[in-house]
């Protein structure tokens, strides 16, 4: 007994985590929550591994709150389908304080990743670019079509025989290949561990107090957690980038930077931005003749590399993708004709509901706010981590404006290279109350994504998978959040201004920062809870429509990203039985204005729309004209746009509906359509307003 007490002494934290693991396991089963065999085991397992690693230490108070929240929410899970998501996330979030505590041990930041590894390996769907990278790995060691053989090419690949992915990164995953998907993902976990080791060493040498905790936050928070352990080259690139920086800071030998810059380009051409940033930092840090010599050497390396690719590699790395004259023209024309698109793409990285970090990782506001402090206190780190991140970001936005978010893969994955500089600046303000608030909200969102990884995947359609899963399509929230796909300039600009204001208040250590953040959140919730009066047609759930089809049929953005005037999906009404039946909102007046934004494509007599509400009905016959191609397209080649829905001018039809007490819904049906629609004919609904 005394011996047991001695063992338990000072290990209350460990015992708490172990007991909680058992509690969660049984609560899950007693309440009958879904996925008992997988999530219902992985969450308790994460607690158990945390208990084993915890060592001596007290019970984290926050974990008690979160465990209680899990217990209460899981009791009510049958009340609403969203509650299983929230309660599971609370269940996992409870170990995060423990993981942060583990980080203070030797190799703590690596140990802290262990409880999450089973979840990463078993829960995340093997999707997006993952199979493509894995199939290249497979092709390097096996000639047959094996596990990943069916994913040999991808939309956007330049030529049938080429994949637009490079071979260096897949080659590094060969040791994991015998173990199939877990093995290949395991290699990526090793890359992430290497990057975290580097980042912690840089922070330690730079004199940060919380250097271990910062490293752990690096993989717990988005964008770090977005592709943690998944088959994407982001973490490997980060490891190489940080390795170059760390080695240079220690040795002051520029060979490390040059080597890192070259390897980054070999991993993926997209990371050339980091390489340029590294060279720029090298130039800034150099003195005397070297200041001029380095740019000259850099130019020679670039020219030699491009020639090497052209002559020796048959253009496999650069020319096959970027040697296309029309592509080069597009890039050159960007600043003249696509400036708004480029600016929106830049803003989207922060505020867009699908790909913006604000909604997945609000801590980045604190990271941005800490940059001036980082510059003052540690100019070297500011330059070496900041400049590559900045150049990478600018090139990314400029190069791939409108398509840079890389969906439908995990949101935020393209922004991984900005993680080190934001963490470095966060490190200086982490202990502040308002900053901790942002960090904990971000951790909560990460916990949702760890337990429900499918919710990380968005499809560039203006909706967010997490918001849709929790609040459903009937929520007004989506009207009040910015989207680059469903662009509403006042909403978009409003959030940019609010984000900038918050960053400014945080940077000035204002006590109003906390209230501004809380108020913004509560006001958004208040507006989002109002009755829905505006429907994006493609969001209308099946309970409010008869038949109808989506245009385009595929969920992904592959075809929509080449459209010129819109990137939204549309709801097609092309059959006499197709109809939209929306509930009437509560109104005090005797009439309601219904506005329909739509496109109409004819094949003979123009199709029409009929709106009916009880005995009242009205109709309009109208067809859209095909628009002219944008100027920047006509500069490149003479182009006549096809008569397809995405090239049609949008129409606006208004109806005033008299309100009758006994009628509860309004019905929208197509007129003049055939029972066997030809081609693209029909009505394409974009948006419906009920005011």
């Amino acid at each position, binding site marked *: 007994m005394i011996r047991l007490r001695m063992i338990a002494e000072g290990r209350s934290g460990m015992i708490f985590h172990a007991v909680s693991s058992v509690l969660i396991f049984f609560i899950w*089963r007693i309440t009958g929550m879904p996925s008992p065999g997988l999530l219902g085991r992985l969450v308790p397992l994460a607690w158990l591994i945390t208990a084993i690693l915890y060592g001596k230490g007290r019970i984290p*108070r926050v974990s008690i709150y979160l465990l209680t929240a899990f217990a209460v929410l899981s009791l009510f899970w*049958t009340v*609403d389908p969203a509650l299983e998501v929230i309660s599971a996330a609370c269940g996992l979030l409870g170990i995060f304080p423990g993981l942060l505590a583990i980080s203070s041990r030797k190799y703590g930041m690596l140990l802290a990743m262990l409880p999450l590894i089973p979840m990463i390996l078993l829960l995340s769907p093997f999707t997006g670019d993952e199979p493509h990278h894995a199939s290249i790995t497979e092709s390097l060691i096996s000639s047959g079509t094996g596990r990943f053989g069916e994913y040999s090419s991808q939309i956007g690949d330049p030529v049938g025989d080429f994949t637009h992915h490079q071979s260096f990164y897949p080659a590094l995953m060969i040791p994991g290949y015998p173990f199939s998907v877990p093995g290949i993902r395991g290699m990526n976990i090793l890359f992430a561990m290497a990057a975290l080791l580097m980042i912690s060493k840089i922070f330690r040498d730079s004199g940060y107090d919380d250097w271990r905790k910062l490293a752990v936050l690096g993989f717990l928070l988005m964008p770090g957690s977005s592709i943690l352990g998944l088959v994407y080259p982001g973490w490997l690139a980060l490891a190489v980038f940080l390795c170059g920086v760390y080695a240079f800071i220690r040795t002051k030998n520029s060979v490390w930077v040059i080597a890192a810059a070259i390897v980054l380009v070999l991993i993926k051409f997209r990371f050339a931005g980091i390489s340029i940033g590294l060279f720029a930092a090298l130039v800034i840090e150099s003195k005397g003749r070297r200041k001029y010599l380095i740019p000259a050497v850099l130019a020679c390396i670039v020219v030699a590399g491009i020639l090497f690719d052209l002559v020796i590699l048959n253009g496999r790395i650069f020319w096959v993708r970027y040697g296309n004259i029309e592509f080069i023209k597009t890039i050159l024309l960007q600043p003249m004709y696509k400036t708004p698109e480029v600016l929106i793409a830049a803003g989207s990285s922060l505020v867009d509901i699908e790909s913006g970090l604000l909604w997945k990782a609000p801590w980045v506001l604190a990271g941005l706010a800490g940059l001036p402090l980082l510059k003052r206190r540690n100019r070297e780190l500011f330059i070496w981590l900041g400049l590559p991140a900045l150049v990478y970001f600018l090139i990314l936005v400029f190069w791939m404006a409108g398509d840079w978010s890389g969906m439908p893969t995990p949101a935020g994955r393209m922004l991984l290279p900005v993680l080190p500089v934001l963490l470095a600046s966060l490190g200086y303000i982490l202990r502040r109350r308002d900053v*901790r608030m942002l960090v904990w909200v971000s951790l909560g969102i990460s916990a949702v994504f760890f337990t429900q990884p499918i919710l990380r995947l968005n499809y560039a359609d203006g909706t967010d998978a997490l918001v849709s899963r929790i609040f459903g399509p009937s929520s007004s929230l989506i009207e009040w959040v910015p989207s680059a796909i469903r662009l509403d300039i006042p909403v978009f600009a409003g959030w940019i201004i609010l984000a900038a204001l918050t960053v400014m208040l945080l940077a000035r250590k204002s006590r109003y920062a906390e209230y501004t953040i809380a108020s913004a959140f509560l006001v958004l919730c208040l507006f989002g809870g*109002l009755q829905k009066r505006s429907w994006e047609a493609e969001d209308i759930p099946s309970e409010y429509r008869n038949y109808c089809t989506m245009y385009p049929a595929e969920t992904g953005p592959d075809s929509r990203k080449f459209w010129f005037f819109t990137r939204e999906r549309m709801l097609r009404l092309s059959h006499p039985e197709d109809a939209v039946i929306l509930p009437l909102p509560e109104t005090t007046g005797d009439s309601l204005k219904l506005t329909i934004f739509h496109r109409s494509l004819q094949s003979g007599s123009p199709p029409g729309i009929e709106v009916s509400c009880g005995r009242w009905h009205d109709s309009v016959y109208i067809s859209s004209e095909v628009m002219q191609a944008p100027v920047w397209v006509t500069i490149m080649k003479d182009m006549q746009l096809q008569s397809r829905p995405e090239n049609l001018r949008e129409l606006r039809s208004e109806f005033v509906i008299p309100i009758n007490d006994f009628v509860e819904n309004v019905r929208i049906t197509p007129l003049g359509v055939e029972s066997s629609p030809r081609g693209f004919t029909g009505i394409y609904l974009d948006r419906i307003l009920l005011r």
Partner: protein
Amino acid sequence: MSDTYKGKLILALSIAAAVFISHGFSIFALAVCLYAAGTSLLRGQQSLTLITIFLGGLSLLSFSSTLGSVLLTAGAALAVAFSVSAVSRSLFCLSAAAVLLSGAIEGTAPFIAAAITAALVKKEKWRALILAGGLSGVILFSGLPSAPGYNSSVSEEALTENGVMWPQPSELNLAKPRLLLQAPGIDIREMTLRISAGGVRDTCQVGHVISAGRTFPVYPGENILLIQEPEFPVSILISRKWKPFTHPVIHFVSAEASF
């Protein structure tokens, strides 16, 4: 009164006013106001305040719905268990009681009683214990709390050359126990449904499919059901009630129907 409290109180009052202006008076609106007042007077760790604000905010997003009620109740339960301030605990307790007594969620009487008792107790350990007792009481006396009526969803239908199909897979569980299939305006002669079921520890019926008063059982494993001249809506329903250590689930795979 300190500046911090003034700020919190102003924020709470503003939220309360905004709730009444935007949603009008209702029991839920009143509960939100009590919750906001409780949050402004909350004394405890910052993380507790943050969790209560977050849950309260999310409840505004699903105003008056069962989800909003649960989130408000969960936030209130946490605050009752861990807030140092007795006034704050009482306000949270009233908030939870208002929501639960309004009938938004059924079968929560033991929890309400436990929350009221716990709010009056000074020692945190006892409060947590009483609340845990209340939660256990709910399960022992009335089973899992449930929303009044079924949470149901409607499967997306698509016209084909020969009829109608429902191609989107869907999962039914105790939180969403009913799925409806519709085929408005079309006479269907025959319908085939592909369904699988599981999550139970026996081979008895997990759910059923209902069409025009006819009932077709769904058993654990794969089920292919053929319904002649179905009447719509066809309803797929989990018939198992909650029981510990069972997780009844029906996977609707697809269905097709011909003219």
